[in-house]
């Protein structure tokens, strides 16, 4: 179990849960980060923030602090 923000470049993970303590958690679920989905960290920019994930056939950029609420394994 780890946070999506802790994935390595090119590493995949299956979403286990979304931490509701994060103020952005609702928008993150709504955009498609739901338990059971496979995500891949496809890009880390120069500052390692934001991060780009591949999800449901599309690419979504999130700040690290927001990716923190996505729990994967």
């Amino acid at each position: 179990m780890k946070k999506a923000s802790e994935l390595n470049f090119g590493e995949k993970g299956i979403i286990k849960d979304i931490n509701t303590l994060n103020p952005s958690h609702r928008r993150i679920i709504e955009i498609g980060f739901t338990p059971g989905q496979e995500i891949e960290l496809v890009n880390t920019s120069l500052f390692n923030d934001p991060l780009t994930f591949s999800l449901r056939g599309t690419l979504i950029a999130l700040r690290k602090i927001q990716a923190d609420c996505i729990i994967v394994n």
Partner: protein
Amino acid sequence: MSEIPLINLVGPPNSGKTTLFNIFSGKHFKTVNYPGSTVEYSSSDFLDKFNLKAKIFDSPGIISLNANSPDEEVAVESLFYQPNNGIPDLILVTADSSQITRHLLLTQQLIDAGFKVILVLTMNDILNRKNLRVNSGLLSEILGIAVVKVNGRTEEGIEDLITTIKDNLKKPKRNPDHSSLAKFRKKEYIIDTFEKIEKIVSKVIEPINPDIQNANNQLSILNPTLKEPSQQPDALTLKIDKILLHKYFGFIIFLLMMGAIFTSIFWLAAPLMDLVDTLFSSLASYSSELLGNNWYSDLISDGIISGTGAVLIFLPQILILFLILGLLEDTGYLARGAMLIDKPLSKIGLNGKSFVPMLSGFACAIPAILSTRTISNRRERLLTIFIIPLMSCSARLPVYVLLIAYLMPPDKPWLGGFLLSFVYLVSIILSIIVAYVINKFNKSLIKAQDDSSFILELPTYKLPKLKVVLRNSYENSKEYILRAGPIILILSLIIWSLTYLPNNVPEFDKTGLTEEEVLQIEKSERISNSYAAKIGTFIEPIMQPLGLDWRVGVSLIAAFAAREVFVSSMALIFKVTDEENIQSSLISAMRNAKIESTGEPLFTISTSIGLIFFFIFALQCISTLAVSRKETGSWRIPLLQLIIFTSTAYIFTFFIINILKSFGIN
């Protein structure tokens, strides 16, 4: 049924919503503020050819009924009730077929809330290229609502959609349940709904030709863990991103690209701006010749024609800026640029999405402030609007050029370009510092507190549609002219009156003078006795600490109409006669100018450098204040901008001039 039915159009961003609205309205729509907010929406009647008497309402894009920003709140509330239009009769919701699982969340919420809904599936051709399609009949059966496929480009399916709308309008009205919004906010609801949608999607997505091996491959490589027929991200996009979003090169490419855009805005626009300038100055002198030497001739040529020129001179830059930004946006790169710059900007309280408005600010603050609407976080949007006037807009360029030309030794003209780049660099660094400081105090300055976030879908790379890009830059330029034009024109007229009235020209000895020379002397005498000169004398105590006099003061006041008016006003006050080469004769006039009370030279190295810094900071643009007032919803921010930036400019200039003088640099 005498009342015209109201149809509300909603959908996630990039789901083809606006394309659909343009088809229905034939682009003859009105864009107005939603009652009681600064959020804009468009509404229109259907084109006659559809033979449908109904009003269509287009609101900002939303991905769910849980609103996260003022724009989204309007979009959600307008579904239930609209202060000016009443209760909508029917909701059209768009969804991108190639993103169907994610886009159906909104549709499902609308159904759950009890709305009368028609689902419009767009981008079917993208899905078809993967040999897949949505079985819309089956989807309609499962969801219990009408589902219509539409192609926004060829308008295929529009007729079908119109028929479906007519059928649905005949059905009885529904009463949607506003209290269901509370349920939609629950984590469990959203996750359960997604699971439900995934099951539906797995049933309705089917291969177009099941015999083709390719189709089976497509289906089996889909998400193996879930058997959900979603797809992998576009392979070409991933490949391009390997370079453009490369950990190190990505940022370098981004900076190079922005540098290139920045220089090309000036470089490409320069000949066009010269053309506008020449056109209007010859038009002004022609009309002055034609009408003779009287007040209405002056009003028309110096007031109206020059004022119109002041509005149109920035048009080339604005057009080119929006053309380039439009091309970048349409290819899909702009979203990535916002991502790359998000981290550095977040350090000063801004957002990656602040970047494009800030870049636009170097052309003109007005379209730049308008383009902050894409920033969903209110605090970040207000802060972005706040610092945009610090971006050195193109109106400041003629002033910099004049003052730098004055500073330059005539034998080293190359130094000018170097110095100009330096001025821009300094202005960027100072803006960053100011943004940082304002962000530190933002709780008291900008009264909006909410959680900052950056969640952005990176679109698939595609070739830009030139037609769309051209249309957008046309729309943006039109907006600039309509919003800023009247203000600049009216102010130019006011400034003209102040410098012309009370039209007091004392008698002087005209012997031995040509008609031309008499006219010039009359002109300068008139301005020396004008109301503007009186105001100038009044503010002289303010100018004195800077080592400047009323003549510069008047030009600074005149610059409030548009900053570049500073140059023409200086030319007028310093009695520059040579029409052919205003700049060089103005510079020699500046070199000879003395402060009347002390006899010391007026323009020195220190005062010229000081004036450059004054223009970097000062908010001398009434149009910017007007747009800032409109976009922030009150006078609070524009007044703070005016006071903070102009007083900073004054204090900074004061220190620069006096520090330089204390080092013996006059």
